């Protein structure tokens, strides 16, 4: 059996043109002087997943071009969407496609229908072609560099780097709470504001939302700190992701594709894009498998984003001798707010509510179909979503 057998059984391949040359060239740029034996397989699949697979002692980097196209769409929304209905519409597409992958065809068709209803709003997106292209390119470089980084870590990195990273994370992300005044009340207040804005709840409901939200943050700051400590001390895979983010970002910075600020900003948004895709995937996984907690994943990825921001603030100061970073840090913060409002919150609040509702509807959650019935439903879904 070959790697093609693995690809064709594990993914829903879409019949789209593949630009293998482009990704060979990206891989070559990133390899630089290093010798890394990875055999590139460029594919276009509904799964949007990049991975390293090992078969018969040969390692393959499977790059999914649909991931790059999705980055392009999300960046287009991030830069040019005048309203959050567009982010909501795109989240219907992501949910619909994830449902299709798990054979929840009626439910997928339901979201496909929602998507087509909202699609006219896409015409309102303002064009920022230059920025969108640049950000998407940097994000594709980063994803491939991140995979190469896992190979570097597996073959060339010793335990010392893991230990140093743990110490640094403890200093910057745990001990910091001894110095700042972050209360349970302030966290809840910020959550309630987001919820009211995204769900368009009337102001009269604020008090009731506030009291219910307290349950979400039960345990408060102490629990936050203890969960962070667990990630740092007991989750080696989490530390490896942090190390790989750093190695990969440095690899992309080294290529001088754009200014260091633009590269860091694009990767920062790229991490938000990847988190969104993972949440869409987990939302559907957790219908059957309750162990796939979105709250835990969201927490973990927040820490990862915080670490990324802190690391590259230091890199800009020390390596690139940038002394006044206020404007840049403000820009990262406004990017975070814009992404949250336009893309993340519609997925986390509105779409999550729809998924919860739908998962209670037995007819919509049917997964067993006769072959002909499945073929017809898939045709309708494909027509609506792609």
């Amino acid at each position, binding site marked *: 059996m070959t790697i093609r057998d693995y690809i064709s059984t594990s993914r829903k391949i879409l019949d789209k043109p593949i630009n293998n040359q482009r990704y060979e060239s990206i891989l070559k740029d990133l390899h630089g002087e290093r010798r890394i034996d990875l055999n590139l397989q460029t594919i276009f699949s509904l799964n949007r997943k990049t991975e390293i697979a090992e078969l018969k002692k040969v390692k393959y980097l499977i790059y999914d071009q649909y991931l790059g196209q999705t980055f392009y769409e999300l960046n287009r929304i991030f830069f040019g969407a005048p309203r959050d209905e567009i982010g909501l519409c795109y989240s219907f597409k992501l949910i619909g496609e994830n449902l299709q992958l798990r054979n929840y065809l009626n439910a997928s068709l339901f979201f496909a229908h929602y998507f087509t209803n909202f699609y006219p709003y896409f015409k309102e997106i303002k064009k920022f072609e230059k920025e969108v292209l640049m950000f998407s390119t940097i994000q594709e470089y980063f994803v491939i560099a991140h995979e190469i980084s896992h190979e570097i870590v597996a073959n060339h990195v010793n335990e010392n780097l893991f230990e140093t990273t743990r110490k640094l994370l403890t200093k910057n992300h745990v001990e910091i709470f001894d110095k700042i005044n972050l209360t349970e009340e302030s966290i809840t207040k910020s959550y309630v504001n987001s919820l009211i804005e995204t769900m368009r709840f009337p102001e009269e409901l604020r008090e009731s939302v506030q009291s219910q939200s307290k349950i979400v943050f039960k345990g408060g700051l102490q629990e936050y700190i203890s969960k962070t400590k667990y990630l740092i001390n007991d989750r080696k895979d989490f530390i490896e992701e942090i190390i790989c983010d750093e190695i990969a970002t440095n690899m992309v910075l080294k290529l001088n594709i754009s200014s260091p600020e633009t590269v860091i900003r694009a990767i920062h948004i790229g991490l938000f894009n990847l988190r969104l895709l993972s949440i869409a995937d987990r939302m559907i996984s957790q219908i059957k498998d309750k162990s796939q907690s979105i709250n835990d994943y969201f927490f973990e990825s927040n820490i990862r984003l915080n670490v990324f921001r802190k690391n590259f603030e230091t890199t800009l100061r020390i390596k690139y001798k940038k002394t006044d970073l206020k404007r840049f840090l403000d820009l990262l913060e406004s990017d975070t707010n814009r992404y949250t409002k336009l893309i993340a919150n519609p997925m986390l609040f509105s779409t999550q509510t729809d998924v919860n509702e739908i998962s209670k509807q037995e007819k919509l959650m049917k*997964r067993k179909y006769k072959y002909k019935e499945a073929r017809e439903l898939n045709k309708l879904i494909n027509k609506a979503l792609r």
Partner: protein
Amino acid sequence: MKLLIEIPRSDIKEAMDFYEANPINVEVIVTKKFEGALDIINMIVDVTTAFGPYVIDYLIKRKEEGKKSTIKIKGIEYEYDTREELEEIIKSAQEEE
């Protein structure tokens, strides 16, 4: 027709036993996805007419023992509760080929 079986990484010994007993029809793949090592082992299985019943037995046995396995055909994840349902999924996929 080829089928992908995903089982928890904790069952790796069982996966290797299944592979070693059927090296022509089974292949084990180790993967690493973007968000870290997923706790699963992938097996590609070539479901020929002769080997099909063995695969069905294997999957049903796991189900009866309460062990988790996910099956995928051309990237789509299928659900089954009984032997008959699993046979029907495999038969439809073979006919489609």
